[in-house]
């Protein structure tokens, strides 16, 4: 079976700076893949290249075995790739319901149908009590949740989650973990970009990719990757590379 998403040797430079350097990996249907790495490792750039917000300077991106390089973000959204933003950007002056309805329009032909679908998704994501609240008045945790709800409204096959857990309290992180697991039950694969919150990564991920300075350092199952010497070095410094890391 072909992977759902295939990133092949993707590079992206900004005026000589290599933000991504020949990165390759695959995402299988319905799985959760975490891309971890320190700030500036290239996670957001990677997401921007996959969705078409940025063009890669080299390599190719395949979605359902078809190259999506050169497509614009609204086109990849229609193909079934949803995303959230690291610095949340819900539509601040629209209500929570309208925010989700915008995305639902990608699949529904009328405003009425999109609104109905948006109501369902708000129930699913526990945002229904805030349907008529303007997004600018939601807490950070709920705005992040709203971004996931909005991405679900696209009926995607894949959602790219850019730091959905950053800045949340431990209780909110747990709720987000449940939400990400719910994606799996909807048959949606997820790629989560995560800088910290390593315990959460261990809990939800089927596969982990480690990025550092735009390069893939390692990949594997959660238990293996966290003990990989290169990973320990990148996170804790070379002094600890020899010692076995504590899970």
């Amino acid at each position, binding site marked *: 079976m072909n992977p759902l998403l295939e990133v092949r040797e993707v590079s992206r430079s900004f005026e000589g700076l290599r933000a991504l350097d020949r990165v390759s990996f695959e995402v299988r249907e319905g799985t959760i893949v975490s891309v971890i790495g320190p700030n500036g490792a290239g996670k957001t750039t990677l997401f921007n290249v996959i969705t078409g917000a940025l063009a890669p300077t080299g390599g190719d991106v395949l979605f359902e075995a078809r190259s999506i390089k050169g497509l614009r*973000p*609204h086109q990849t959204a229609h193909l079934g790739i949803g995303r959230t933003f690291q610095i949340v950007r819900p539509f601040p002056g*629209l209500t929570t319901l309208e925010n989700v309805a915008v995305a639902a329009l990608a699949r529904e032909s*009328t405003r009425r149908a999109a609104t109905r679908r948006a109501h369902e998704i708000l129930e699913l994501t526990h945002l229904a009590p805030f349907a008529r609240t303007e997004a600018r008045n939601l807490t950070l945790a709920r705005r992040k949740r709203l971004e996931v709800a909005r991405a679900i409204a696209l009926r995607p096959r894949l959602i790219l989650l850019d730091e959905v857990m950053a800045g949340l309290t431990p209780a909110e992180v747990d709720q987000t973990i449940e939400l990400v697991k719910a994606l799996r039950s909807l048959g949606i694969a997820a790629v989560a970009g995560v800088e910290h919150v390593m315990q959460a990564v261990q809990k939800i991920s089927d596969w982990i990719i480690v990025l550092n300075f735009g390069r893939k350092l390692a990949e594997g199952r959660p238990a293996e990757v966290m003990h990989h010497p290169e990973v320990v070095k990148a996170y804790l410094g070379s002094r600890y590379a020899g010692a076995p890391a504590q899970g």
Partner: protein
Amino acid sequence: MATALRIVAALAIAALILVPLFGSEYLISFAFTTFLFVGMAYGWNLISGYTAYVSFGQISFFGIGAYAMAILVAKLSWPWPFAALAGVAAAALLAAPLGWAMLRLRGPYFALGMLGFMQVLYMVASAWSGLTNGGEGIYLPPVRSLRPVYLASLLMVAAGLGVTSMIDRSAFGLRLRSIGEDEIAAEAMGVDTTRAKLAAFVLASIFPAMAGGLYAYRLSYVDPSSAFPASYEVQVILMAIFGGAGTVWGPLVGGVLLTGVAEVLWARFAEMHLFLFGLIIVIVLRYMPEGLVPLLRQRAARRSGPVLPKEATG
């Protein structure tokens, strides 16, 4: 409540249609001018109110409508209603490629790009004497009765209100608002932002073109400065913002109130009227930056509607 509103609306419409039968020349003329501005405010609202692509150059289309009217009526002896429609068609045809180029610019660059385009058209109108008579201008046959153009201006306002109200409730309208809120997020949520913006831009060009045509017909004279009156641009923008940009009733409320206020100030305080007008604008924008209609709506919601869940921000 809804029935009462409907009866009031029906009475208002009847009164507006009857104005030309019973009203004085002054009243008809004042109402006509007001409607031209309200119509233009509806046009501006479609592109700049909903998508937040603020344009300082919608008067470009006003000029195209004015010149189409002048050239077709004075030189080719067309009946004025056809000339007005031809001006609208010309503006829309021009708006398509223009929007394709201009809508790549964002924020102040788009606003200034449109302003620059208006200057270019002004130059062209001044220089292309063969078509426009340059600075000498074109004279149209004098208008015998204001009544037909008054009705045309009333129709334009009705069209502005009707089209805006339809768009506001439609999928298209929601897409336009999402662009106004955050274009990058809209694109990521599957909105073809280029297409939606262009459609709004072309639709928005129709209203100033119609207004320009009617204005030229009424004035019986068109030259570059009367076809591209930059001060009208400012007034139209103020009206839309004063009433509430991105709302269905904002352009109507703002347009009628501001032309009314300006008229009263001009009649009572001839020497100070511009100063007082400016003062009112500053005060209004200071205390209700979103405009009158959103403010009234919030008040009404607070009085009657269910209390929304209050969120602690943070």
